[in-house]
């Protein structure tokens, strides 16, 4: 086993364990903290995949903004949702079964697919620069790029209208 493989296995196990705690911990603030660890694990996975830009963006956006926003929301609404008492609904057995079936099915499909034959090639150009060029290039992703900004604008206006009341 090479060093990279060992790192990948550690990262994957930590991430999945953290994710399991996210969905099972009754204390919601703890769930949010575990979510931060899981998201950090995903960022480490991005580094292993040489997508370094996405790795840092993952930390900036998910941990620095989304997780913080979630903790704020948890604290705002804590009065009606105490940490004690069951946090899962009556269908949880069915949900667990469904998740398990999905995982087993996907794994089965993946092992039998040709994915194992895919090979790595060396990076020749800087992906960040390539991304920057193609995100604003008219024959690549300029429309999704501008649409994303419009979407975010709409989301901001919408959420201010919903949450903000004098």
């Amino acid at each position: 086993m090479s060093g990279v493989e060992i790192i990948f296995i550690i990262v994957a196990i930590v991430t999945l364990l953290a994710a399991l705690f996210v969905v099972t911990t009754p204390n919601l603030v703890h769930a949010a903290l575990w979510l931060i660890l899981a998201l950090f694990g995903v960022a480490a996975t991005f580094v292993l995949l040489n997508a370094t830009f996405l790795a840092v963006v993952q930390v900036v956006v998910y941990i620095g903004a989304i997780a913080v926003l979630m903790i704020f929301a948890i604290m705002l609404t804590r009065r009606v949702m105490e940490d004690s008492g069951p946090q899962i609904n009556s269908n949880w057995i069915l949900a667990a079964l469904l998740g398990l079936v999905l995982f087993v099915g996907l794994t089965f499909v993946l092992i039998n697919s040709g994915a194992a034959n895919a090979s790595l090639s060396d990076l020749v150009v800087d992906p960040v620069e390539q991304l920057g060029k193609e995100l604003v290039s008219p024959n690549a992703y300029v429309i999704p790029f501008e649409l994303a900004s419009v979407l975010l604008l709409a989301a901001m206006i919408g959420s201010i209208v919903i949450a903000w009341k004098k």
Partner: protein
Amino acid sequence: MISLTWYLIFAAALFSIGLYGVLARKNAIAILMGIELMLNAVNINLVAFWRYGDLANIAGQAFAVIVFAVAAAEVAVGLALVISLYRRRNTIVAEEIDLMKW
């Protein structure tokens, strides 16, 4: 070298855990956390396919960036709805949000 299959299985596991969270949790914010996990699993897939595919085609990373934006928008609006519900109906249990049911 790590095979592409391992990344995909890792992502599948993360997705399944997220799915369980979405289906089994009572609290609306916890459900949003499950959705975040699922979106992250999708992102791992996108980036893994970029890395193991044609590197000249940046689509995998570009889509991942768009997924970030969508996730941010979803969380912003989703949590705003949760807060609004909390203030109007004093509940954030997903099952009790049945305003459109009669």
